[in-house]
């Protein structure tokens, strides 16, 4: 079983990956149509 700190780090990694995806998509849509 994961301990709390490990779980927290994993959660932050997941969230940062998703946030990066969101920003990349937003930028890509605008740049593609520039």
């Amino acid at each position, binding site marked *: 079983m994961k301990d709390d700190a490990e779980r927290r780090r994993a*959660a932050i990694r997941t969230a940062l990956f998703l946030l990066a995806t*969101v920003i990349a998509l937003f930028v890509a849509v605008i740049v593609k149509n520039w």
Partner: protein
Amino acid sequence: MAAVHDHDVAHAHDHHPTGLMRWLTSTNHKDIGTMYLWFSFIMFLTGGVMALTIRAELFQPGIQIVNPEFFNQLTTLHGLVMIFGAIMPAFVGFANWQVPMMIGAPDMAFARMNNWSFWLLPPAALLLLGSFFAPGGAPAGGWTIYPPLSVQMGMGMDMAIFAIHIMGASSIMGSINIITTILNMRAPGMTLMKMPLFVWTWLITAYLLVLVMPVLAGAVTMLLTDRNFGTNFFNAAGGGDPVMFQHIFWFFGHPEVYIMILPAFGIVSEIIPTFARKPLFGYSSMVYATASIAILSCIVWAHHMFTAGMPVTGQLFFMYATMLIAVPTGVKVFNWTATMWRGSMTFETPMLFAIGFIFLFTLGGFSGVVCAIVPIDIQVQDTYYVIAHFHYVLVSGALFAIFGGAYYWLPKWTGHMYDETLGKWHFWLSMFFFNLTFFVQHFLGLAGMPRRIPDYALQFADFNMISSIGAFGFGLSQLVFLYVVLKCIRGGAKATAQTWEGAKTLEWTLPSPAPYHSFETPPVIR
């Protein structure tokens, strides 16, 4: 699912601020879920009043009640309010309440961000509704805000664009929170393929949101710069392409349809096994069907724009891809029916709404397949046939599932049983008046009545009159729901922990009402 947990009810730590501060500063998933649900109900009534004004105007041919400009503002805002204000936040409310309890987690992964996700919504709603009072009024080009109309409108459009940005940010934060919670905070032993279907459908929905919300944000940002900063993304006179907006919008817009229906599938997949007293038939095929629908939903967007002009190969691709979605959807309908087959069924209100959902959503699915066929779509494009189709999917689909889910979990949320008799009245009145409103719209559409028009030719008068009577009946029926919910919150028979004998998911191992903090020690799933 067998679960063991040493959660001690007597030691539930429910210390929290009281009064307004409890709600403003809450980081508790149950409080935030409650706020989402009430917010969505208020927006449902707001959008409903707009719908009734539209139907009052359409009761007879001619212009009676509102002027055409205001009529167009009403149809536009009705769509935006119902989609972004009512249906989506309602499902996020369900996710907030249920996902942590169903996976045995104490709360959402990012509790403070959860608070912020919700509290972005009221200002966005105020901006959107406030656009009615802006010079030039609210946006009036339809909820799809196509240019060139949306580039030419008054500042109400800027307010709507800003509102869409804020609601999009709220949705993105909410979906990141849900994905992170599900992937990282499941109780020991709860593998992905042991998760309740509602959690699975929300996981997939949240991924869809992460994929398409930034695309919508990009589209409306370009619209905003076209309107205010002299760019020409969608301005044909400046070398831009208005049809490109349609492609980008529908790349968001079609998955959005599934964002509004996949959690409904999840709710129905929880209700039916409970009241059929059998495990869900074909659990893994349900998961794969949900994922297939989500993937296919990203490659069918241009079926919304067959009349905008595209090569025949494009039409064929989007037509066949769209029809392909009927396969995983059929798997789901088959599995729900097979779950009920030879089950010990009882027909409490949640089950009635779930069965009503299966009947009417399937009907809406069939008319969707009709619309997918290019030569037919060219005939029915922008007619009342399309209005009938998507209201069967979104009202008797998404909304009926929301009602079913609300009745199903109200005892867990409030600790009281709701009034079963009134619940059944709510269902049957909704069922009757919904069909009275929208079934006849198929005939209107096939006869050629266009959507978003305040006046119509005389031959459409009878069916419009029937539809308007149905709409007022449906609207008033929802007051029964409000009464049942308020009565349930105020009191009633005490609900037991295991309210429904056939319910198997983790939340039913908690007392009713669920304690303010649950599963501080994770349960162990065998």
